[in-house]
């Protein structure tokens, strides 16, 4: 049973990144590869803030979110103002971040030993880290749900939905993309922040291919939301969190039945492929006719 609980907690931690991908992928229709870099940036900043700078976990959270937001804004600026394709912009920033992350960490791996973190400092019993893991997605989900209902929130959603219309309503697309991707990558960095503290180390390679995990969560969540006929934004985001948990469950089950851990990325890729095919199945059917 232990691995199930671990999978749920990991799923809840990765769910923050899932919410970030939801913003870039579903609102802006941008597959944001920056994620790989900003996730590790969140992890690197967390490790350095907690061990070397001796900051409080919640001050660290602030630093991590600012770091992620800067990374996301850079991608948006490169994409919008230098007219470079979103995918390439993301790869550029991700590549640059690899070096930045190494510079932040100073070495490729930092263990968190005897440092206060959110899973320990708040006097929760270590056997109940899921309380914290549950609290984070819940709070950020609530915040996002509120923001996306405001005038500003619908302006952000419209700018990803229809640029011509948005401009004619006076919405500055560039500004909206910067803020949107900043939000997305800040959330992704919080994912890195949680994972680092949960597994008690940060590693320079922990973000490689992590965008697939996020995409998988969003796609699985989306299919579930469609199956339950959920239309509201908040409802869809709840299913992104659920999707993240399901994703980790599948990985955990594959490990428990004896799949070689080296094959985890392969399984991740196959899973995302399956999720895309599943979401597109109506398209194939209509073409077959």
């Amino acid at each position: 049973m232990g691995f199930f609980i671990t999978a749920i907690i990991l799923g809840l931690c990765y769910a923050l990144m899932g919410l970030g991908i939801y913003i870039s992928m579903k609102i802006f229709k941008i597959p944001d590869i920056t994620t790989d870099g900003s996730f590790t940036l969140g992890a690197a900043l967390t490790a350095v803030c907690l061990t070397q700078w001796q900051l409080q976990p919640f001050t660290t959270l602030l630093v991590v979110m600012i770091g992620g937001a800067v990374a996301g804004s850079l991608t948006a600026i490169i994409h919008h103002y230098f007219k470079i394709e979103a995918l390439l912009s993301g790869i550029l920033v991700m590549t640059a971040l690899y070096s930045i992350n190494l510079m932040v960490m100073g070495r490729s791996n930092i263990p968190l030993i005897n440092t206060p973190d959110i899973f320990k400092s708040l006097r929760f019993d270590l056997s109940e880290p899921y309380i914290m893991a549950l609290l984070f997605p819940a709070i950020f989900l609530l915040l996002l749900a509120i923001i996306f209902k405001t005038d500003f929130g619908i302006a952000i959603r419209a700018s990803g939905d229809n640029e011509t219309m948005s401009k004619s309503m006076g919405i500055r697309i560039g500004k909206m993309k910067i803020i949107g991707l900043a939000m997305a990558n800040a959330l992704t960095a919080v994912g890195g922040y949680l994972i680092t503290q949960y597994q008690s180390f940060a590693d320079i390679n922990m973000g490689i291919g992590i965008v697939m995990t996020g995409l998988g969560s969003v796609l699985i969540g989306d299919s579930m939301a469609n199956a339950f006929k959920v239309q509201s934004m908040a409802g869809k985001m709840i299913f992104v969190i659920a999707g993240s948990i399901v994703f980790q469950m599948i990985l955990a089950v594959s490990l428990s039945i004896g799949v070689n851990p080296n094959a985890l990325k392969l399984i991740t890729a196959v899973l995302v492929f399956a999720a895309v095919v599943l979401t597109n199945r109506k398209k194939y059917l209509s073409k077959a006719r």
Partner: protein
Amino acid sequence: MISLENIQKHFTLGDGTVIKALNDINITINKGDFVTIIGSNGSGKSTLIKLISGIEQPTAGNILLNKRNITRQSVEERSAYVAQVFQNPESGVAPNLSILENFRLAFLRGKTKSLFNTINSSFKNHTRDKIAALNMGLENKLNMPIGMLSGGQRQALCLLMATLAPCELLLMDEPTAALDPVNAALVLETANNIVKQDGLTCLYITHNMQDAIKYGSRLIQLQNGTVIKDIDKTVTPITEVTW
């Protein structure tokens, strides 16, 4: 109130060929005018409207609105006083947003979109009444994504949206081109009623001569990027025969 002074618009193609879409256009549109612009394909009608809305910038010349030079302003900056209905109903709405959310954006056209929720029940009721007046049965579907509606329904809503916030100029680029005759007539009637009711100044592009004469108070015909006819209907009554 809006004047185009010596407007030229040239497009340069990849191989260096220059296409002169508009040559030396001088038009002054007065407040309350319902100007219809006619002309064959490639005559420069759409380019003209894109210059006024700010989607394109002129190669030379000035655009003045109430004596203020707006030639170099972007679409976003002009949105405070220019409202648009696009040729394609899909251009005018955010498909994944609900009808009500689209209307909120339209209400805030050209204004700051703050971190507050300015929607209240009176706005909702006001929107519902306006939509009910279309007689399309959409007033009970305010929370439905607007992308699920038909082209005609969307275009009718676009029209309401364009006129929700005050504007100095309403631009309509063949708003009925994508619609069937029944819906086209309905949308045009609605447009005409709103324009008359609110005393709007309006620029309307059409291919349909009858519509141009029926609704326009002034007709401008373009050919090869120049104005070849400019007739004020209130001074010179026109029928299709005399045209």
